[in-house]
């Protein structure tokens, strides 16, 4: 018999509430876009960390302004995202294992001259790990689509014979730009639908008397 756990459903609804306005998608997309630009710089890791803090603040503020008057505002309990980090690390390590096996079989174990070729696969696997964790935890179809896009896109930008049309190191940047574009476009569609379908509640009706 299927167990019914109302508290688990309440928790999932609270998590889904944070995603239903599409702001999170847009912010993640813009972050991915900024990371795509940052990969061309030597201080990539520093920029990624700084951007993460900025985008988190931006999301909180925008989400509060858009969802607050319409569906209310809820702050989730801050949990250490251990499962998310484990998922991302597992995806990254698995990819590195595949790369090691491929380079070892050709007699060039960890030959880093080819890293621009497989960098999109590594980035795609890491992103897919994060999206898949979010999808399974919150039951969001969009994140399943992002998982598929991250994996499919990374394979395309790894294997497609661009030839001399682009610099090999641009494969990663192009992959991140493409994925960011898809995520931002989806987020905008979700945001427009959300604002149209969910009118703002009058301030007097949304508060304690």
């Amino acid at each position: 018999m299927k167990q019914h756990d109302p508290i688990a459903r309440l928790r999932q609804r609270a998590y889904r509430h944070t995603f239903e306005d599409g702001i999170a998608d847009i912010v993640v997309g813009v972050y991915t876009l900024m990371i795509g630009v940052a990969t061309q710089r030597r201080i990539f890791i520093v920029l990624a960390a700084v951007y993460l803090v900025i985008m988190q603040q931006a999301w909180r503020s925008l989400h509060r302004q858009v969802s607050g008057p319409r569906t209310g505002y809820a702050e989730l309990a801050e949990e250490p995202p251990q499962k998310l980090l484990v998922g991302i690390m597992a995806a990254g390590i698995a990819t590195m294992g595949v790369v090691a096996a491929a380079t070892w079989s050709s007699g060039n174990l960890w030959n880093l001259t080819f890293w621009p070729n497989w960098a999109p696969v590594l980035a795609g696997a890491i992103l897919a790990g994060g999206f898949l964790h979010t999808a399974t935890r919150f039951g969001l179809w969009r994140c399943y689509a992002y998982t598929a896009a991250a994996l499919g896109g990374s394979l395309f930008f790894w294997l497609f014979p661009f030839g001399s049309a682009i610099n090999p190191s641009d494969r990663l940047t192009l992959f991140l730009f493409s994925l960011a574009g898809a995520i931002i476009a989806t987020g905008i569609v979700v945001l427009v639908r959300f604002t149209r379908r969910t009118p703002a509640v009058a301030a007097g009706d949304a508060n304690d008397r």
Partner: protein
Amino acid sequence: MTGDNDAVDLESIARVDRLVHEPGRLMVLACLSVVERADFLYVMRETGLTQGNLSSHLAKLEAAGYVAVEKTFAGKVPRTMLRLTDHGRQALRAYRDTLIEVLGRLP
């Protein structure tokens, strides 16, 4: 002797926290138990209670120290933020434990 034992078992039902036991208030507490804090509108939508009904329940929960109510402003718009206190969380857990104790062996 059997009658005495039955009386003892029935007494545990009477120990149920009536403030938590009311369905409307139980919904509010359950809703707040899964978030750090939430505003009035969020709780109203999640529980399906009317504004007046929710206000009434919140007044009782706040008086008991189960829920903290904070009036803030988002720009010029007033906002009522609600948070389950530690005391409220303990009361909710105690209520759950009592129900399990009383009804856990229901055939």
